[in-house]
């Protein structure tokens, strides 16, 4: 496994991760501690969260940090608040029950102490659940294991759009906290509900994007296996470390290289996989005739516009490789279709822009290839047959980029 694009400082992103993870847990659980009017516990619980946040970093030991914007940092925390608030809300019912019982029934103090102990154990259990579930999601967001480039974690979100919602949310929480302190302790629990409501759309957007960035369907796995069998090294994680450039190269699903020659692959399929993931999540809900969402539309031949970004994205990979001093003397963009067809405009465009275009036959035993059911020799044969890994076939009779791109206008 190869990682490219290690930022110069690994300390800062890790310190930020600990802080953000800590916030995402502390914010929904602090209202419970205030509800039971045990603020001194707060420090103990928070210290435990902090220790857990730091210890979770061991998972990310060998992974380079993903470059993120401040907006993305903020929204990742907000997205985590939904799940953690839901857990905190469930945990709070233990204390609510004890409080109600204590006010209704005249039980002995020993029995009440036992009940309080059970309620505390209940909160600790749920707190641990929140720590265990939130950690991996945050780690994957800030230190992803795989993926080419860094697609925006929250496409469609901008500071102006989230500002008023954030301000309204914070004001409501401050108001409820004041109410909880002076008159009505249950207002603290209302804070948790407000956190859930405010964070729900962000959490939904985050979940959609997670599907988009982590989908690796069997056909793509098969292509990885074929490339491996042909001596290519798969760049499991490729990034330049610059947010703007990393967004450009995120258009590729796979980058593999061998002896200084790299293949940058975009994969389009009809039924499943990366393209379908884009379609099903609608790439942050944008509707597109070129990235169709319905079954009927997916049967349509793909036009030249699906390849229109590849040359520009290749430039970003060159920039990244140059910056990271990775030897990539040449990079061949390759568009692979499975269950999709290319119309004449796409074929012509790929030819003029020197973009490799491969249409995998639907009869190809991709599942078997992905599962490694064939011998190395058979795999190499499949690679030659399906991916045309005789690279001369891509470079012959192609115009150098930029030489034949004049507008006919």
């Amino acid at each position, binding site marked *: 496994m190869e990682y490219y694009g290690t930022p110069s400082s690994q300390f800062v992103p890790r310190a930020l991760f600990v802080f953000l993870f800590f916030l995402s847990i502390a914010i929904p659980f602090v209202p419970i501690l205030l509800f039971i009017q045990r603020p001194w516990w707060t420090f103990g619980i928070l210290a435990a969260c902090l220790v857990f946040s730091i210890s979770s970093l061991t998972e990310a030991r060998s992974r380079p940090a993903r470059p993120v914007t401040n907006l993305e940092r903020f929204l990742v925390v907000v997205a985590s608040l*939904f799940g953690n608030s*839901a857990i905190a809300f469930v945990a709070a019912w233990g204390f609510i029950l004890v409080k109600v019982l204590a006010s209704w029934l005249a039980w002995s103090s020993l029995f009440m102490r036992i009940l309080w102990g059970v309620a505390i154990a209940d909160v600790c259990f749920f707190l641990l659940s929140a720590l265990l579930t939130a950690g991996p999601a945050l780690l994957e967001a800030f230190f992803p294991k795989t993926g080419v480039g860094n*697609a*925006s974690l929250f496409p469609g979100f*901008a500071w102006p759009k989230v500002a008023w*919602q954030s301000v309204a949310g914070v004001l409501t929480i401050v108001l409820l906290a004041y109410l909880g302190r002076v008159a009505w302790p249950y207002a603290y629990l209302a804070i948790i509900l407000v956190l*859930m*409501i*405010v964070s*729900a*759309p962000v*959490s*939904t957007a985050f979940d959609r994007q997670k599907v988009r960035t982590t989908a690796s369907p069997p056909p793509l796995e098969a292509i990885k296996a074929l490339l491996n069998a042909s001596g290519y090294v798969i760049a499991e994680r490729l990034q330049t470390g610059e*947010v*703007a450039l990393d*967004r450009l190269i995120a*258009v590729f699903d796979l980058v593999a290289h061998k002896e200084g*020659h790299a293949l940058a692959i975009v994969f389009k399929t009809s039924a499943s996989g990366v393209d379908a993931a*884009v379609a099903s999540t609608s*790439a*942050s809900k*944008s*509707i*597109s*005739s*070129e*990235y169709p969402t319905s079954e009927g539309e997916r049967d349509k031949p793909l*036009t*030249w*516009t*699906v390849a*229109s*970004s590849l*040359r*520009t994205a*290749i*430039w*970003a990979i*060159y920039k990244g490789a*140059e910056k990271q001093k990775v030897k*990539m003397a040449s*990079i*061949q963009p390759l568009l692979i279709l499975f269950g999709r067809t290319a119309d004449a*405009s796409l074929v012509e465009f790929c030819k*003029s822009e*020197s973009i490799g275009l491969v249409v995998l036959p639907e009869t190809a035993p991709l599942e078997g290839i992905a599962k490694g059911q064939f011998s190395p020799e058979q795999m190499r044969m499949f690679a030659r047959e399906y991916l045309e890994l005789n690279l*001369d076939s891509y*470079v012959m*009779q192609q*115009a*150098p*980029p*930029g*030489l*034949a*791109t*004049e*507008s*006919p*206008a």
Partner: protein
Amino acid sequence: MIIQQTATFITEKLAGEPEKKDPFLALRSLEIDAELVKTFTPLFEQAGFRIVLDAVRDPTGMSRKLTLAKNGGSSLYVIAVDKCVLGEFTDVTFSAFNTLLYLFGASSKVRIISRDLDVPDLGFDSIIEQWEQFKKISAVVIPWKHIAALLRENDSETRFQKFQLIFKLEPCDKPVSQAAGPITDAERDDILRIMSAYASGAFNLTPQAAMQNLVLAADFPDAGNFSGSWSGDPNSNSLRLLKWAKDDHLAYPQNHPRKGQSMLGWLLKALHDQTISSEDKVILARIVVDHALIEDAAIVSNLRTEASDPDVPRHQP
């Protein structure tokens, strides 16, 4: 999951989520709206430009209308790009926006207006930078707040000043020097012959590697982009490279140490420095000196000395 979806639905309804548009469809029309045409027309005329409705074609031949400001030989495309494209960077909007690269010819100047958008999402600036490197397309996204200020401005003089400023109407790229007129057909044939001979006979190099070596030696911006796309035919490679550098009068970009200088000149210098015959070196030196293709005084001085070799006959005019 149900709770999450319900809460999402409620908050999105409360926030009034805007209707989503198809970025590709949104870019079918690049015309600026009537209000902007009405505002800009007198300002462009004051700056010496004439506004015309023009059309460009994409690789499939589909025509897209847009506004063109013309001033003699100088042209400026003014296009409208929907906020749904520039406001959100995704695979889809990236592909849609980058189709514009294939609409405009090399060295085009484009001003992009996106109603209600001040700053494009992260990533679009890099695309525009690449257009500059790739085809010398100078594109600028004009923040909507500047346009809005222009629309509000009542004082005609201030309005014109603002207009010139935001449209960057000052000449930003000087034309490449063609001091002694364009290269003649005979000179072009000489260059092609020398380049093809070099590419086919370069020591220990394939024709593709030889061509790549040439663009690297000329220090072309993003020379790596050429790699992997050369054919095995030295003649067609030479023809394409020469056509690209010569016919488009390409110059090095502003961030290059040779900014503004002819890329053809340095390509010929790179070819001159390869292992070619001394007679061919003289021919290339003459072309560079005669057409003032290089501005470096020391190099020009050396080439001039070489070009004066009386043993190599000149072409008859």
